[in-house]
């Protein structure tokens, strides 16, 4: 397997170690597709750059922080999330139809895609490996309390757990509860507290 090592290995072609079988096979495919004029390498660079630098959980964190500080924005976000998210400049594939679900002291929400790996790319970027893995996809619907517990903060028995299985093109974002003691913080400072897992619902803030 190409992934026996999961340390940060962006060095496939930087000489620290011999290229893996997959690296060679993908390089061969890219060379061929470029030679045949099927893909433009500059377009590939632009797509990789988009996912590495333009989208990610920092986008979602800005939305959450705005919702915490601006009640009118929060109302728009819970009413028509796609439009409210676009107000902050975030839109694109895998974010066409957004729904935001709110955590409260009595409700915890958890997002999964049991069928594949659907995830709101414009606001969270690409999903982590665990989100795409068979263990998470199979267990999140049948044992959401156990899954959440593994992330470190199990819900109490009298807290309702709502799981959202993204089976269509609607993408879900959890609005986490604002942590106690953050009344004096501004929007930027609040956004820094918001985590990817908080917006998937696996771990409150």
């Amino acid at each position, binding site marked *: 397997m190409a992934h026996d090592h999961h340390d940060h290995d962006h060095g496939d072609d930087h000489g620290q170690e011999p290229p893996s079988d997959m690296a060679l096979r993908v390089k061969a495919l890219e060379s061929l597709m470029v030679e045949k004029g099927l893909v433009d390498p500059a377009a590939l660079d632009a797509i990789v750059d988009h996912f590495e630098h333009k989208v990610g959980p920092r986008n979602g964190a800005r939305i959450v922080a705005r919702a915490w500080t601006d009640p009118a924005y929060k109302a728009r976000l819970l009413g028509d999330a796609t439009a409210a998210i676009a107000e902050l400049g975030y839109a694109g594939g895998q974010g066409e*139809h957004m729904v935001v679900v709110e955590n409260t002291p009595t409700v915890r929400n958890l997002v999964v895609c049991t069928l594949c790996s659907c995830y709101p790319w414009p606001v969270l970027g690409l999903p982590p490996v665990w989100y795409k893995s068979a263990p998470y996809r*199979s267990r999140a*619907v049948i044992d959401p309390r156990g899954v959440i517990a593994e992330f470190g903060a199990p819900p109490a028995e009298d807290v309702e757990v709502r799981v959202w299985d993204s089976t269509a093109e609607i993408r879900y974002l959890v609005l986490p509860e604002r942590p106690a003691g953050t009344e004096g913080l501004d929007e930027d400072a609040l956004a820094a507290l918001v985590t990817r897992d908080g917006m998937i619902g696996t771990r409150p803030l």
Partner: protein
Amino acid sequence: MGGMANLGEIVIEPDEPVFHHTWEGRVHAMTMASPTRTNIDAGRHQRELIAGPEYLAMTYYEKWFRSLTELVVAHGLATPAEIADGRAAPGFQASTPGLSADAAAERLARRGSYLRDGPSPQFAEGDAVRARTLNPPGHTRLPRYVRGRLGVIAARRGAHVFPDSHAHGKGEDPRPLYTVRFTARELWGPDANPLDSVCLDLWEPYLERA
């Protein structure tokens, strides 16, 4: 695979990079830029065609690579030998790439939609429905774990492109889409917490009035 037992531990990696290897990003980008890209449902169906035991053993981007190479061959754009060599066989005619860097950036930020004009919804919020027991031979987005189960319409979402048609080149065939809430007890039995529920987004052909 919702509800299946014993598929392994959830492994949480701190500070995970977007791509673990350079090649993963290239596979992602090639899949998006390739002329084999048709629609999202056909792409999902292509990855579902990987046999179960292999599917479970492959990483996410290994599946994408497998699907991309199969599509390139199926579209007659290259032979398996060319893909293995990384070089075109003599005498080929070069195409012009369909997606430039500028067009890629524009496409990634485009505000698309799967909403379409379509039939009026039969169900209203609060209606009791049962997920049909269906086992179509092709692509579907009706998970096995809700088939035959009772739920309640939680929201109407308008008419959306219907994957069971779209994945197979049979057009968008828009159908009303609903968010349907199932109690955890209905799905998993009396040991589930009575407060808990699972919501899924299901198209009208997956549902019947209960």
